[in-house]
């Protein structure tokens, strides 16, 4: 079982898994939000390939019944193809949404660097709750006093 032959199916599986791992690597390692989005696209593409590969048959044809079709012809599994169709459209919707969010973040914070975005995000949350940002060295009492005086 574990002796892996070099067949076209194995290569395809290898490629699909590698694609999704590259995507995951990018999502975890990169700092530019737009690049992270592109990594997400890669990750989804890899997962979709993996899914559609699960229905492949050796010598199979597309599952469409045509007129001159002989009886013994092998068809690929139609279910994964339908699932992937669904998954791709879902992916498109989410990517568009992420793009719109990136636009808004850029407009609010003027940066695409995830570290800076996170820093500003935490600061904004802390300010709205009138406490010092977690991990900052400013004394919490001082900050709350000053905001209290402002009111």
């Amino acid at each position, binding site marked *: 079982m574990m002796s892996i032959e070099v067949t076209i199916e194995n290569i395809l599986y290898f490629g699909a898994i590698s694609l999704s791992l590259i995507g995951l690597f990018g999502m975890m390692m990169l700092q530019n939000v737009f690049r992270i989005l592109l990594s997400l696209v890669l990750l989804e593409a890899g997962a*979709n390939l993996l899914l559609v590969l*699960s229905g492949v048959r050796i010598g199979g044809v597309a599952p469409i019944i045509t007129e001159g079709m002989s009886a013994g012809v092998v068809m690929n599994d139609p279910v994964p193809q339908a699932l992937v169709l669904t998954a791709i459209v879902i992916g498109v919707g989410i990517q568009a949404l*992420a793009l719109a*969010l990136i636009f808004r973040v850029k407009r609010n914070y003027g940066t695409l660097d995830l570290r800076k975005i996170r820093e500003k995000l935490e600061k*904004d949350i802390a300010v*709205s709750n009138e*406490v010092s940002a977690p991990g900052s060295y400013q004394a919490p009492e001082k900050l709350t006093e000053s905001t209290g005086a402002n009111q």
Partner: protein
Amino acid sequence: MNKMILLIALPLLAAFLIPVVAKFSATVSRLLGPVVLAFVLVFVALQWNVVGRDSFAIFLGGFLPPVGIVFYVDHFSLMFSAIIAAMLLVVWPWGQYTAIRQQSLYMLLAASSFGLVLSSDLFNLYVFYELLAVATYGLVANQPHKAAPAAALRYLFVSCAGSVMLLIGIGIIYTITGTLNIAHLATMIGKLHGLAGLSAFILIVVGAGVKAEMFPVNSWVPEVYGTSSKSLSALLAGLISKLAVVLILRVLLMLFQVDVVLDLLLVVGILGVLSGEMVAWRAKDVTRMLSFSSIAQLGLVFVALSLSGTIGLWLAVGLMLHHLLVKGGLFLLADSMPGSFNSLKGLARRSPILGAIFLIFIFSLLGIPPFPGFWIKLMLVINLAQQDDVLYQIAIGVVLFATVIEASYLFKLVRIMYQKNDENIIKPPQTSTSGMNLLYAKFFALIVVVSMPFVSPISDRLKDMSRQSVNAENYIETIMSQPKLGGQS
């Protein structure tokens, strides 16, 4: 019976039509959502007795398994449907300031939640999970807070990576078994318990765990709750996280009652409890404290799930319902408690009712005797003690230790709230929603108090329902053994 599908069709219809109707009459479109939710509530109540002791299945489009999508209706799914409708009505954005499309998003949220508790098909669950995810990104991103889009973006990245893991897990399961129907999968359970099947399940848990605030994938929690309005936080922490657990529950109970998986859930749960309570202890404002406490509480749910079978489900559902009431109520109450702990000085002296409600919630959260939280924690500890694995003994220690930490930070807050504060009485800034939310919080507290004498009958009822839901043979028989299917196999 087939009319159960209206639970999904009607909210979706309302979601599509709300923006169109709004062009003609704003009032009608604003009423559309609540009317549909109220209808669902009535409908579920009518169905309750129809289900009776026997659960039933709905075959969508009349296609029998394994080819079609199947819905499985039992008392649990009905109970969760009713809770979803009620909770959404509580947090419904009545105010005129909300954009009309936001109401569409709430309806989509409703449809996907009903789908998640009813569906018995893996890929269908994935689709509804994604719909739930997209609707929540939208709601989080459109909060007026300046940081909201950034929080939503980080949430989206974590959650999408999780969803892809879920998809890969489903793909692996389909590859080894050739079916997606959970009942059909339960008949070929042997195939799933190999290395591939178990890793697929782990991928599914990681994927769904993002929304369930599971230990390693919950970095979004404080950011999202920090930027969202309190009623949205109540919805996310109270309801949406539970729905992700329900997804895991279905797959776990029917397919993967294996020691490795249960141990893994236990470890994840313990780490969640510990990390959540530790960070909550250091928090300096109510929202942050509640977010991390919610991570810890969901860790407890995972600990309960690691007990196999009826007991696990019973405890997990009990914990979830309790947490839904208490944390939902606390988040709604937090709308009247803005700012850091210091600015809350003497708040309970100024408004004693608020203080009393807060005390009721935290007593129940901690598990102080007559409150319902006590009985659930007691049952959890007793049942953990009956296991002879070392891990479970550690879990008991962790649960008790976590309660101590929890008590320490909650009572710290109580002390601040009851402190004398003569020098400067600052009235807490009222948001437009805090009055309404305070009312709902009072209502939630009332439920907690009223349920106290009925803890024993409620828990018996829950146990009955768990027995019904855990029964895999009944599940398989209801879905798989249809007259027409006899010839195939």
